């Protein structure tokens, strides 16, 4: 009798991967193109969580993973690892982007106006079953407004600051080239402001919603009012080695500002932004941000708690790692259990540690 040679494991994993890939078959450029065109919301969500703005790569990752979001994300994050950091782009102020949508729930009307922009908020969620019967669904064309909305809109918080309603955000004295980068440094607590915002920007949409929702339901102290929700496109302005600053292109961004009246004498702000258009995520994340100052340790709105637990690659990876064999650690615990049984003193064994 001999041991199974090493090849056994290798062949097994290769065939298992083939079985999975057989479900999706050939991946062609046209499939990737179609995914990009048909699923912009999904592409945006994946780009935000990957912190990599590359619609084609995101569509490819979705094609390659068969739509498994966490797999797509890992593909993009791992690809990102291999890329050098060439430049730090110019900072962009909230009101600088080309604004597509910008609403406030805090006031009936706001300077610059409420701009609904593209949304399904008021659509009736009826499945277009006729498509399955062979009839294409063709959305009606947009009728342009008589006067186009301006491309730029002032920030509502700026108006509130001017009115003395809001604590003005503290100016961060950090140098442009020295902005802490979460992908190059570990997250430590209390977290640097840049790390908190970066971490929320790349957080899991579902995880952010779950914890943000818990805060909204009362596990946080501050009830959010959406001060401003903004979808825009912003220029990525970088410096040419010759010294000229130029735009390398535009990226879609979402920003949410939520406020609570539960400040001492002024409104308190919570903020989040991400790459791509993803409203659920930025509202949830801003709510977490709003609730985090002074939150008790180990509550869902404690910064360490929500930043660690909404990291999508880490949480999903750890979850699926429990499929790996754990028989050595299990054996070790079993040995302790049997030892205790043999002593016949303790019918209820003590809580053993996480044998991950």
């Amino acid at each position: 009798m001999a041991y199974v040679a090493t090849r056994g494991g290798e062949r097994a994993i290769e065939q298992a991967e083939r079985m999975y890939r057989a479900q999706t078959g050939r991946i062609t450029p046209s499939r990737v193109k179609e995914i990009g065109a048909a699923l912009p919301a999904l592409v945006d969500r994946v780009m935000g969580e990957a912190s990599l703005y590359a619609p084609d790569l995101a569509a490819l990752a979705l094609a390659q993973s068969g739509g498994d979001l966490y797999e797509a994300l890992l593909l993009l994050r791992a690809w990102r690892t291999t890329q050098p950091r060439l430049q730090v782009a110019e900072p962009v102020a909230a009101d600088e982007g080309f604004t597509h949508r910008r609403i406030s729930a805090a006031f009936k009307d706001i300077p610059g106006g409420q701009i609904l922009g593209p949304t399904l908020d008021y659509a009736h969620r009826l499945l277009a079953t006729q498509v399955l019967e062979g009839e294409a669904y063709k959305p009606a064309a947009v009728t342009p407004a008589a006067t186009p909305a301006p491309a730029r809109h002032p920030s509502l918080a700026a108006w509130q600051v001017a009115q003395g309603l809001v604590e003005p955000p503290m100016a961060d004295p950090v140098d442009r080239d020295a902005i802490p980068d979460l992908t190059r440094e570990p997250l430590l607590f209390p977290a640097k402001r840049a790390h908190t915002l970066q971490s929320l920007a790349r957080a899991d949409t579902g995880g952010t919603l779950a914890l943000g929702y818990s805060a909204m339901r009362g596990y946080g102290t501050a009830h959010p009012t959406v001060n401003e929700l903004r979808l825009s496109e912003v220029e990525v302005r970088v410096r040419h080695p010759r010294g000229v600053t130029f735009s390398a292109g535009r990226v879609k961004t979402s920003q949410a500002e939520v406020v609570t009246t539960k400040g001492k004498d002024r409104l308190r702000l919570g903020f989040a932004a991400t790459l791509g258009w993803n409203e659920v995520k930025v509202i949830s994340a801003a709510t977490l941000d709003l609730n985090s100052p002074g939150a008790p340790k180990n509550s869902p709105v404690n910064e360490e708690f929500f930043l660690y637990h909404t990291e999508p690659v880490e949480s999903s990876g750890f979850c699926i790692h429990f499929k790996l064999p754990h028989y050595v650690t299990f054996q070790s615990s079993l040995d302790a259990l049997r030892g205790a049984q043999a002593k016949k003193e303790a019918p209820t064994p003590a809580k053993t540690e996480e044998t991950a």
Partner: protein
Amino acid sequence: MPTLTADPQLPEPDAAEARDNATFHAVLQALSRPGTVHGLPGAGACPVAQALVDRECRVWTDDRHLAEVLAMTGAAMVAPELADHLFLSLASAEAMDRLLRVRTGSRLYPDQGATVVAPARISQGPALDLAGPGIAGAARLCLGGLHADIWRVRARLNRYPQGIEMLFHDGAALVALPRSTTVTEV
């Protein structure tokens, strides 16, 4: 679908990667076995700087030639008390004053203690008895070309787990003293 077919041939490190890899193996072994001598792929502090330092680092040096090499890495040049890596001679009294100011980290973050890289004459000069992790029993090291106060200064800096790592190069030879090593002048 294969996802990593970009490089079908067996990958080969380029010259920089091969050099940095060899340097780091020497550094790692030297720190793991304080007092033992290891070979660098090139002479002086240059290979050590190239293997360890980049734009995430803050550095200080008193060596003009090395300053150019460090500038290429993108590291920020800062005062000695702010640097995470220092490349300097430790032969003068002035250098001792400088050394006393370097970062030793905190008990919360001992990793913020600096790495100090200095020329020395290995296997010459005063004898030192070494003890601590990486050393089976005791070891003796002779190290010359350093100011007489160096070990008193080091002892003042090292409040374990706070402290600094010292790498000494002599041509292409390297020895290291991590903060965990107890140094006794013989």
